């Protein structure tokens, strides 16, 4: 295997060399955490990544380039658009990161209904590209399903996960402000970043108008505002997604992978597509995984006592669909009838923007890799809407730059001089709304269509429904209400539409629950039908809440890892 000294040498080894204590499928946020926690507890771990190796700092090829060193100054080319039709639907088409996205020709999928699937098949997965916003869920979220009857009850409550939020926040490094909001619990924060003058003013005016019901706070973000051993604090370049040469934000590469490697217990194998879990019907456990080497097309079996499936919400379901089909035609976990169902996301792509008058004598310095957050304020504290659940907003205020239109100037020195100075202030925010768990929103195997390796692809059949559409209208209107209250002018709403998946927060395909008849996983993320298999990525989510979910995946993964090791020690799995 190229690129990594800890990789296994496959040729001519006996079966015992393929045997580990634990196998982690996937190297993104959840897989990285699983590898770290399990290796630190002394387990010999094999981490499998289906894509290429992607080394911290060394492989962030553009991250230290100046803007003018990009041939197209960041603009994607027509060829990029042709090669990445799915990524082209969103805002992430940028020449600096195009090759971080998955090759869409090699890895197609079927859209029964429009579904935007943002994938990054390489070491670290989407932890390199992620938006880093990190919020806790609360009992408002964990009790949501049982309260209004949609979906099934979460098998855990906030008290079960709170210590694990503490645990992962301390290690990952989350900057943020303590606000004392019960439905957006405070955490173990590094110092908060600054709101700028306009944001502070708008925050104050919102407070004056709406009292204690609405809050505009600085985003809670996995960027270091103080150094953590082995990592440098955020340098405010705001180029995170190219990979940070300073390790200024949490990614597998900057954080969990070095920690796991330090134990000496980790083996990493890139180009390893896990095609199925090896299920033993006598022990009712998985005893390993089958791997298709993406480079040489050969198949290998790896054995382990436990498996952590962290391949991303949709791909973890794909692996389960393909596993133990001799017992359950629908795959491991399908006995509940829920595997692949209840696909959720956060719907967004809409909000409002406006012009802020004044503050011409105020500016900022540095590029803050963060914005403000307005936590949910609907359907709580006595507020009642015609739809269920809620939404939050993420946004920012800033001064316009050279790309603004100067209506009164056409060409020449006056235009140039005007554009060398900052323009007026603007403020805008985007809503992130909860999607209910609908059984009929599902993914399944499309056996009629194959990927580059001859493997059946996923088909997506999921959509927003009435509740989400009603919420979307309110998301726009409430942002207008708040901007108006803050004295913002020229307010415009926008709604660029939302296909499922576009929020990059896909979840729910193997949900946790209290009952094996209605859920795929138990309260410890164990597959009911194979209790040494743990699914701890977005697949496990029983409801979506409206907060960015990655921090919750981290906490659930660490929690499940401790449980797995305890159960191993007790001989229960």
């Amino acid at each position: 295997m190229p690129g990594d000294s800890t990789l296994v040498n496959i040729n001519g080894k006996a079966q015992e060399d393929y045997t580990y204590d634990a196998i982690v499928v996937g190297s993104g946020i959840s897989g990285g955490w699983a590898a770290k926690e399990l290796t630190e507890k002394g387990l010999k771990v094999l981490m499998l990544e289906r894509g290429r190796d992607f080394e911290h700092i060394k492989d962030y090829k553009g991250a230290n380039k100046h803007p003018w060193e990009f041939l197209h100054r960041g603009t994607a080319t027509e060829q990029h658009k042709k090669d990445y039709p799915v990524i082209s639907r969103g805002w992430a088409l940028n020449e600096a990161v195009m090759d971080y996205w998955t090759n869409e020709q090699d890895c197609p999928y079927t859209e029964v209904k429009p579904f935007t699937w943002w994938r990054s098949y390489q070491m670290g997965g989407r932890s390199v590209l992620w938006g880093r916003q990190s919020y806790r869920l609360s009992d408002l979220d964990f009790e949501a399903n049982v309260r209004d009857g949609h979906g099934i009850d979460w098998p855990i409550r906030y008290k079960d996960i709170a210590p694990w939020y503490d645990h992962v926040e301390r290690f990952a490094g989350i900057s943020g402000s303590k606000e004392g909001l019960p439905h957006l619990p405070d955490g173990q924060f590094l110092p908060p970043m600054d709101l700028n003058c306009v944001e502070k003013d708008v925050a104050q005016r919102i407070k004056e108008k709406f009292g204690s019901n609405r809050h505009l706070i600085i985003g809670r973000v996995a960027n270091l505002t103080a150094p953590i051993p082995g990592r440098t604090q955020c340098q405010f370049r705001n180029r995170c997604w190219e990979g940070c040469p300073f390790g200024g934000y949490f990614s597998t590469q900057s954080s969990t992978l070095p920690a796991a490697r330090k134990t000496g217990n980790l083996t990493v194998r890139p180009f390893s597509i896990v095609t199925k879990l090896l299920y033993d019907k006598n022990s009712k456990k998985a005893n390993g995984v089958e791997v298709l080497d993406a480079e040489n097309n050969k198949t290998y079996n790896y054995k382990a006592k436990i498996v952590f499936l962290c391949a991303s919400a949709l791909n973890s379901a794909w692996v389960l669909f393909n596993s133990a089909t001799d017992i359950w035609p629908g795959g491991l976990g399908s006995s509940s009838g829920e595997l692949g169902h209840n696909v959720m996301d956060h719907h967004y792509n809409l909000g409002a923007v406006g012009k802020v008058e004044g503050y011409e004598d105020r500016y900022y310095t540095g590029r803050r890799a963060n914005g403000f957050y307005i936590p949910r304020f609907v359907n709580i504290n006595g507020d009642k809407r015609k739809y269920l659940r809620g939404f939050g907003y993420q946004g920012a205020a800033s001064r316009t730059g050279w790309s603004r239109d100067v209506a009164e100037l056409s060409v020449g020195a006056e235009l140039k001089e005007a554009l060398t100075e900052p323009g007026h202030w603007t403020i805008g925010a985007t809503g992130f709304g909860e999607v209910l768990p609908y059984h009929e929103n599902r993914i399944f195997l499309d056996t009629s269509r194959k990927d580059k390796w001859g493997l059946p692809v996923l088909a997506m059949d999921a959509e927003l429904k009435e509740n989400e559409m009603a919420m979307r209208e309110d998301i726009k209107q409430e942002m207008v209400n708040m901007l108006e209250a803050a004295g913002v002018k020229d307010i415009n709403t926008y709604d660029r539409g939302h296909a499922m998946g576009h929020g990059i927060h896909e979840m729910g395909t193997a949900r946790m629950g209290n009952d094996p008849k209605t859920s795929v996983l138990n309260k410890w993320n164990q597959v009911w039908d194979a209790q040494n298999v743990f699914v701890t990525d977005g697949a496990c989510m029983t409801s979506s809440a409206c907060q960015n979910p990655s921090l919750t995946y981290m906490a659930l993964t660490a929690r499940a890892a401790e449980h797995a090791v305890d159960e191993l020690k007790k001989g229960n799995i």
Partner: protein
Amino acid sequence: MKRRQAVSTLALIFGGTMVGSNLFLTGCKTEEKKTGLTDFSADEVALLDEVAETIIPTTSTPGAKAAKVGAFMKIMVTDCYEEKNQKVFVDGIAALQAASEKQFGKDFMNIDAAQRKELLTALDKEQREYQKSKKPEDPNHYFKMMKDLTLQGYFTSEVGATQALRYVPVPGKYEGCIPYNKGDKAWAT
């Protein structure tokens, strides 16, 4: 402006680097590109340089020609424009020359700086009118393309970013509320 702001808000939220290119990030459909349409000659690149220099002239800081904006336009139109927009741009070069001939009896390279500014000011007015009335799916006016590419090419270039604007590759900190005095340059990124 709405879409531009929406896109830049999203990019800001998600930590995307914009490198000032948010004008051009979205909205183009993929189409097959015919090669050769944009094989601009050295003369044509020189003409584009002069057009750009008229839009962003040398003042106390270098202008668009020093930033090689003509060559930048060639790269962008070749690689990042779909064919129907390439055609508008290519035809636009001829239209610009024709406008110069009509008004001054000479091509653009042979009129003086004041005449160039007069001509492009008129073309800018023309493009603004056109942009207001055109259908969303119609291509932009050729002079809007030239002007947008000039601004992008200049302000994201080394001379534009470091001399006309202020460029700090590694700020090291963020301060959200500092004094701004009229005349202070905007941040390049």
